[in-house]
């Protein structure tokens, strides 16, 4: 792991929608080849942070650098170039419902490369084999299970071999076995392909299985309340919110 060179640098980012500020003055870095997990309770702004990192929403203030290029101030051509460097898996998979899995993966390859059709076909099938779906290439998204849809979405995000993959809640709505298999897949892809992962999740089991480093967001401070190795945070953090999260203690008000 190359600690010296961050692939993502978030600087003084304030995020929100219209007048509502959800996150205030966020700073952190993600290094090449690590699995970086953004965690926190429901409604603390995890998904908002992710959407701002991938430039789906303009930040209220601050900037996001991906591989050294500023995504927030880039013009359209530059943005497209930077965006080719990462892939995104959305919470629901967001596969195109009218296309087969193979066509879903082929799409980016067809649009962005000059490869001959049989090469595109082979690469798309290789991506689907990587996630264990090579026997479902001709299926439509609504013909396969939720876990498979998420794996197919990862295959689609990897079509152009991006160096960074953003995953929004990969284990949401999955059973523990499927969720563990997805965690193992993330680990394997990180080891073999050297992909940097930025994962949003609140599943404790998942966090301990995959995370090299985490940041924890909190609603009350609108910022990061902890950063580091999840095992170390669980055992040594003196922040009550962090201990509460890792020990699954309910809020007294909620209980």
């Amino acid at each position, binding site marked *: 792991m190359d600690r010296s060179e961050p692939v993502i640098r978030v600087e003084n980012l304030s995020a929100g929608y219209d007048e509502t500020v959800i996150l205030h003055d966020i700073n952190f870095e993600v290094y090449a080849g690590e699995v970086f997990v953004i965690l926190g309770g429901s409604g603390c702004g995890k998904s908002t942070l992710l959407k701002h990192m991938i430039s789906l929403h303009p930040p209220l203030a601050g900037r996001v650098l991906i591989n050294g290029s500023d995504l927030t101030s880039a013009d359209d051509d530059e943005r497209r170039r930077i965006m080719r460097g990462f892939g995104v898996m959305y919470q629901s998979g967001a596969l*195109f*419902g*009218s296309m*087969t899995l*193979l066509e879903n993966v082929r799409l980016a*390859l067809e649009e*962005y*490369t*000059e*490869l*001959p059709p*049989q*090469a595109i*076909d*082979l*690469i798309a*099938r*290789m*991506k689907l*084999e*990587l996630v264990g779906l*090579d*026997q*479902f*290439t*001709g*299926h439509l998204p*609504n013909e396969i299970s939720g876990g498979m849809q998420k794996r197919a979405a990862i295959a689609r995000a*990897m079509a*152009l*071999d991006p160096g960074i993959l953003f995953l929004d809640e990969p284990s949401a709505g999955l059973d523990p076995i499927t969720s563990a298999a997805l965690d193992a897949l993330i680990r394997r892809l990180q080891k*073999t*392909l050297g992909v940097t992962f930025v994962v949003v999740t609140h599943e404790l089991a998942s966090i301990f299985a995959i995370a090299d480093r985490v940041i924890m967001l909190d609603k009350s401070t609108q910022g990061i309340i902890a950063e580091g190795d999840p095992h170390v945070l669980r055992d040594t953090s003196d922040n009550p919110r962090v201990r509460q999260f890792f020990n699954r203690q309910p809020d007294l008000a909620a209980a």
Partner: protein
Amino acid sequence: MAALAINDTPDGRRVLALSGRLDASSIPALWDDAHRALSDAPERPVTVDAGGVDYCDGAGIALLIDLVAHPRPAPVDVANLKPAHEVLYRQFDPARLEHDLDPEPKRAPVIEEIGRASIRLGRDIRGQVSFIGEVVAALANAIVNPASVRWRDVWRICERVGADGLPIIALISFLLGLILAFQSAVPMKRFGAEIFVADLIGLSMVRELGPLMTAILLAGRTGAAFAAEIGTMHVNQEVDALTTMGLDPVRFLVTPRIIATLLMMPLLTLFSILVGMAGGALTMQSFAVPLVTFLKEVDSAVTPTDFMAGFVKTFVFAILIAGVGCLRGLETAAGASAVGDSATRAVVSGIILLVVVDGIFAVVYFVLDI
């Protein structure tokens, strides 16, 4: 950039030496050359020497695998891969990737397609008949037991169907009356018969154009909205949620919409007739026919029977538009395009039904001499 060098060794081997960066942007240039090198000399065993490759991503691995899996008598092997690339390469089994394991089914023969379409049509008709039955039962129940109707929904839908629809119906009807009067007044003036334009406008608006134009506008506006709204609810499993709560989707979603359309359609038609005649009267002013004369002429030409003949149709049209819209919504399939399909089908089949039923009315009125 990537480079490819082809050498034949004295022992009968062909060596393809790859070097540089193998990625999606560099390999298209050498994909065909590399394959040609294999098919040119099918009897020679080939070694792909990847020793000079500095960088290799998924696309590069795809090239290697495609070369190894190339169908030819002599074998192809890969040598000198760097350990990092070796790891990537070993993840895949070239034999397994040779063919698509789940190819898309080929298009069925025409006969089979026709058969399937016929079965679909049969099911469609069956569904429509049972839907009509359910709607009739639900409406009968609503009449017997008015408290079971969700009146709050009815008023909300009335507002959207009726009040919100007024501007477009006013505009179209006004222009219709205006244009109809103008087009007929010009030739009739040559015979000094422009006063009879008032009869024409009055009769056609009351008996035919008022009800039909309002119905067609409502089919486009309201029928499509019902189909899209219920279709989206269906896709979001809201209709399933109603069913599992023991609530009948027809009573809950369809009945209020049909009642609201039944209440609004006659009012909108009256409004349309009135505005259409206002348009006609305005045109006639410019042909020196004063408003009083126009009204008197309409009054003498249009009988209460004519009015009832047009008015009765509006109730039938209302049931058709709302019913078809709701039916198409409930039939919505899964997927992003399904809601759009439902809305389209609601409008198209709604308008076809309107025209057909209007024709039936015309024949019945003719036979009954109304």
